[in-house]
């Protein structure tokens, strides 16, 4: 059985970590799948899916690390006018941070529940907000 749920999230800041853990758990519970996998997949190139401990200090460290890798202003090749978009590519840090954190994660499903480590939080990590983002939560199993 495959159950696919599409969720939309509106970020409210240029960068934001949104906790979507309970949404993932709820989709699994409602899916009817008792054994299998759940995949969380974002469909964008300037945000990502992050799993880590949901503490403000951990989030702050993650943000600082990503800022060191891709600071707001840098020598970015993407910072030029893009005729296909009709706009200047001014979101290079978002693209790079998205690549670093990845765009998806997977958890096992056992007895109808998503199985996560006790410290694990699922964040939708916004790197080019604010804007509306689409996330697919797909449950596969029996």
């Amino acid at each position, binding site marked *: 059985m495959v159950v696919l749920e599409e969720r939309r999230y*509106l970020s409210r800041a240029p960068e934001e970590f949104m906790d979507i853990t309970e949404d993932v758990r709820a989709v699994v519970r409602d899916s009817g799948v008792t054994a299998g996998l759940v995949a969380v997949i974002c469909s964008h190139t300037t945000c990502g899916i992050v799993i880590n401990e949901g503490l403000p200090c951990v989030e702050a460290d993650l943000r600082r690390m990503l800022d060191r890798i891709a600071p707001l202003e840098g020598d970015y090749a993407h*910072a030029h006018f893009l005729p*296909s*978009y*009709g706009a*200047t590519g*001014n979101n290079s840090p978002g693209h790079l941070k998205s690549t670093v954190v990845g765009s998806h994660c997977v958890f096992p499903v056992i007895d109808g529940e998503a199985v996560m480590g006790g410290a694990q939080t699922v964040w939708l990590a916004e790197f080019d907000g*604010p*804007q*509306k983002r689409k996330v697919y939560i797909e449950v596969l199993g029996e």
Partner: protein
Amino acid sequence: MAIDAHVHPVLWSETLEFDRAGLAAWGDLYSAHLMGAMDWDEVSVEMDAGSVTSAFVMALDLTATVGGTVVSNDAVAALVAAHPERLVGFASVDPHRSDAAAELERCLGGLGLRGLFLHPSKQQFSLDESCVEPLLGLCERHEAPVYVHAGMSWQPCAYGEDARPARFERVIAEHPGVRFALTQFGWPWVDEMVMLLLKYPNCYTDTAVNTIGSPQEMMERLFLHDLGPRWLELSLSRQVMFASNTPRFRAFKMLRALDGIPMPPEVRHRVYEGNALAFLEGGDA
């Protein structure tokens, strides 16, 4: 806090409710097929993120050149009616329309739009053509400001020579009772724009200069290189308005870049808010 003086709401979902063909037209005319529509909750959140309190939104009438509107006057009026606390509407009338004056009268009178937006290079007219004069007369009678696209446009068939600030001097000079704003410092003809600002107190411009590099790069280029170090503070501070030219560029990113340009607090206040209000309503910033 800031007022965004120059926004094209072409990719807003509410606009598309009125102008379903507008999105396709935007893609064809503006070379922007990959940009998607934004719901109002996204628009308002983005304004909040940049502390943008309100925005001037522009219709675009290309009746005589391509046979339709990209954003109609009725769509802009509906947007403003739905969000009066955040939006101020500017009409667009193609001067070559046979009913141009009647349409502008309808907009400034019945629809409640507050000004006129003209795009000489895209609408393919000259500001000193006789067909423009009745429109300027109506604007003067309604005390409605006139926003004019100046400088480079990425749109096809929008030729730079029709958008040079100096081309507009005679009309600005001959209509001292009309407040004109020329977009994006007339980039790349910034020196011509400065000349007009110095000579004509009824002339304004905006900061929507982001044609080639990052917002930071372009704001630094404009204010720290193209302008002398104290030109803004000493001579231009009452005529420059913050603007983003959204959807080309996101307002909060333009503001973030402008925040990095040194200027006295009272000048920053004028650039961010006061001058837009003065342009819209008359009086001092």
